Each structure stands twice: as structure tokens, then as C-alpha cells.
């Protein structure tokens, strides 16, 4: 079976080759170079774009380095709690809609509304109702991350083949059996795709929450807004970079998780 599709995909998914990682690395080097040149050309206004080594120095400085990483930790906490709630709620909501038509008819319009309300407009209200602390920050995350979870799961559950359903029906399988042995497994790739999107959005939510709700121990968003206001440009850049990297890491983690979970039988992008 030298050429079974299984082996072919495994080969494609193997260790990334030079041609995969070399071009982005080269581009990064170019950007770093351009930053130096631009910084030199800016003269008096060099603070607009700090030198990469100045940015890097922030991470190792005893004052701001630990502060950045500590606030990143707080952001992570909010984002993960928010994401966990969004995943649980989203999957349960989708299952409810898939199980009972009336739930879908009554609540699906609100899922779409949830998707289209400008979240920033509602944020002050959330603070007003839930305080300007951890809970409010988590709620922002959930509001932002919930929709992709719900819609992806629902789509996944509804994409079960008619013949598969009939196969189960012919054996008199119960609703619960159909859900656990057919619908949820079929929906798994869509659920992981949703989780990957929601994870990224949850990071966005946590940072937005930091901007608005600064009680308790706000995260990296609060630092970004502080450094921005004080024109501390290397610190500002350092915090933004860390926040972005965090988003990327979360996305990659869910990509990896999705591949681990369903990659054997589904080409999880």
C-alpha cells in the first residue's frame, strides 16, 4: 500500500520543509531592516517607530519586562475563561437548535443579531451592569467569540448525510445515540474550525475588555493604552508585539488540536 491516500497525506503533513519557513523569515528580516532605516530617517520624530533593539530591550528591562508578561498572563486568563464559556455555550446552543426546530426558529435570529451588533457600542453597558472587573472582561470575550462557535457547530450538525441518518434510523437508534455517534462526530471538524476562529476573537475580546474595564488586574490591553497615552513608544511596540504573538499562538494551538482530533479522517486546514 505504498500509495494509499493515508500515507500521501502524512507525507504532506510531515516536518515543514525549508521552502515553508524560509520566505516568511526572510520577510521578517526585511521588515526589521526597514524599521532601522525608517527610524534613522525619521530624525526627531524617531519615537514614532522605535528601533527593534529598543523594543527588545523592553522585554529584558527589570521594570517593564515583568509587567508586560504578567499582564499578558491576566489577559490569557480572561481569554481562556471566555473561550471555554463560548465553546460550551455555542456547542450546547447549536445542539439545542439542531434537536428542536422551534429553538432554531426562535433563537437563530438572535445569534445573527449577536453577530452584527457593534460590540464596542455595548461594552459600556456591560461595565455598567457587571462592574468593571474580571467578569465584565470575560463577558466581552464571550459576546465576541460565541457566534462562530454556534454557527459552525450548527452547520456541522446539519451537514450529516441523509443516508447516514437513515442507516441509524433503520436500526431504531435513539435521538441521543444519533447525536453522540453520528451528528457530533460529523460536526467535529466544523466545531474545531469554529474554536480556532473563536479563540482568536476571544483574545481580541480580552484586550478590548482591558481597554474599558480597568478594575482588578487588567491585562495587556491596559498596558497598551497606558503606554500609548504616555508616548512610551518602545514599550508600546513591545506590548503590541506580545499581544499579537499571543493571538497567533492561540490560533496555532487550536489548529494543532483540530488536526490531532480529526486530521486522520478529515483534511483539517
Amino acid at each position, binding site marked *: *500500500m505504498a500509495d*494509499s*491516500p*493515508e500515507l500521501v497525506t502524512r507525507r504532506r503533513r510531515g516536518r515543514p520543509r525549508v521552502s515553508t519557513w524560509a520566505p516568511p523569515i526572510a520577510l521578517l528580516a526585511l521588515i526589521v531592516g526597514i524599521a532601522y532605516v525608517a527610524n534613522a530617517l525619521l530624525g526627531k520624530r524617531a519615537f514614532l517607530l522605535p528601533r527593534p533593539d529598543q523594543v527588545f530591550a523592553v522585554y529584558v528591562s527589570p521594570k517593564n519586562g515583568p509587567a508586560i508578561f504578567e499582564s499578558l498572563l491576566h489577559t490569557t486568563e480572561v481569554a481562556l475563561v471566555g473561550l471555554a464559556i463560548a465553546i460550551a455555550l455555542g456547542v450546547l446552543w447549536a445542539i439545542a437548535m439542531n434537536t428542536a426546530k422551534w429553538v432554531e426558529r426562535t433563537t437563530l435570529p438572535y445569534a445573527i443579531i449577536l453577530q452584527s451588533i457593534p460590540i464596542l457600542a455595548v461594552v459600556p453597558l456591560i461595565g455598567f451592569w457587571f462592574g468593571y472587573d474580571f467578569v465584565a472582561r470575560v463577558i466581552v470575550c464571550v459576546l465576541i467569540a460565541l457566534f462562530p462557535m454556534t454557527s459552525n457547530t450548527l452547520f456541522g450538525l446539519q451537514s450529516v*448525510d441523509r*443516508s*447516514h441518518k*437513515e*442507516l*441509524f*434510523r*433503520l*436500526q*431504531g*437508534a435513539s435521538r441521543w*445515540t444519533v447525536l453522540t*455517534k*453520528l451528528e457530533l*462526530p460529523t460536526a*467535529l471538524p466544523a466545531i474545531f474550525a469554529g474554536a480556532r476562529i473563536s479563540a482568536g476573537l476571544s483574545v481580541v475580546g480580552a484586550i478590548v475588555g482591558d481597554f474599558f474595564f480597568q478594575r482588578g488586574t487588567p491585562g495587556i490591553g491596559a498596558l497598551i493604552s497606558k503606554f500609548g497615552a504616555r508616548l512610551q513608544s518602545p514599550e508600546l511596540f513591545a506590548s503590541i508585539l506580545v499581544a499579537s504573538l499571543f493571538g497567533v499562538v492561540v490560533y496555532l494551538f487550536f489548529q494543532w488540536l483540530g488536526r490531532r482530533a*480529526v486530521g*486522520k*479522517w*478529515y483534511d483539517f486546514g
Partner: protein
Amino acid sequence: MPTATATATATLLDFSDVQMTFPDGTVALSGIDLTVKRGEFVTVVGPSGCGKSTLLRIASGLETASHGSVELATDRIGYVFQDATLLPWRSVQSNVELLAELHGTPKADRLAKAKEAIDLVGLTGFEKHLPRALSGGMRMRTSLARSLTLDPEIFLFDEPFGALDEITRERLNDELLRLFAEKQFAGLFITHSVSEAVYLSTKVIVMSGRPGKIVDTFEVPFAMPRDPEIRFTGEFAGLVGKVSHALREGHH
């Protein structure tokens, strides 16, 4: 029919004056009278859209006839769909175990049954493979094995080999005949291929275009187990010709 009389000739499936009108007004079947007895292998041929799948769906209980009576004397039905309908996340082994699992059969029984069925269809050694790593023919065998675990008294086949190449189809035809001889189930088989119909069955039913009616019935006189060489005899060709002719007549 020399072999059918040897076993008990209980009627397993009985359609009388069955009509099927869908809610949108489509009349798919009309005045269908049909019986399938134990030891019989009945094949239905007919133009596309004449209601062949609908016939099977009514027989299995997936659909309810709008008129007439349908009696099924057993609840051990094997249903083989046009595509293999395997669950892509399950290995061959666990796909074959599925139906027994849905019936709550204990693990040890399930394993034994699946092993026997996998053996019967010649897939030993492929138990751990996922469906995507199988050829079309192997997928169909897995699907057959899955139905075999129910030890069905009647097998319903909806164009199971339609998507396969000629060689694979012929090989699977021979295996199906072997299984039929060994397991003594009753078969109701749908196909587009007249020669497949004549080769496999004890009786061929020809249907007309919509609304689907039975226009002709042919008893196939060749002995079971069938010699593959029979396909190259004049007698066989003659019967294929007659069935094809009836099919063409019914088309108009």
C-alpha cells in the same frame, strides 16, 4: 426453480397494490404487487426515476406507502445503500461493528461477528484502515460486511455496485452469489445493468417509467450456485435480450 424448493418457501416481503404519491403530487409507484420468498433473489430493473429506490425505502420502513399493503415478515433486514455510507472516522473494524453496537450487542459478540463478516467479504488484514484509505470496491465490501453482522433474513440492495468499474462489479457479483448460497437470505436487488440482474437473480422484475409499474417478470432458470461462465452462453444472452426488450418497451 430447483433450489428454492429445497429450503422453506416462506414469504418474507409482500407488496400488494402498493401506490406511492409524494406530498408534492409526484406519483412514484402505482399498483405494485411483489413478493420475495426465502431463497429468492429478486432483481428490479427500470428507467431512472421510476421509483426503484422508493420501493426499497417502503420495504424497509423508511417511507410509508400512501396506498396498498406492505408486509415484512422479519425485522432482520440488511440495507445496502448506493454509496457505502461508511462513517469516515471509524476504521473498517469499527464500521462493521456499528449496527451491532446500535443494537446494544456486548463487545465480545460484536467483535466475533465483525471478524466473521470481514472474513466473509475478504477484507481480513484491512481492519484498521480508515474508509478514505480504501478503494471503492473495498468500501462496498465493508458496507456489505456491516449488514452481514445483523444476519439478515432479507437483504435490500439499492444499486450497490453502480459506481464501480466492470471488473470489480463482476467480482463482487460472484461474492454476493457465494454469500447468497451460504447464508440463504432473501434478496431484493436494484440495478441498471440487465446482465447483472440476470446473472444474480432467480427472478427479474421490469418496471416502466413514472409512475413506476411492473410491466414484466422473468424467472431465471439457471441453477444456483451459478457458474460465472454462464454469462457467455446463448441462453443467458437470450434472456438478457428479452429483459432489455421489455425494459425498452416500458420506457415508452
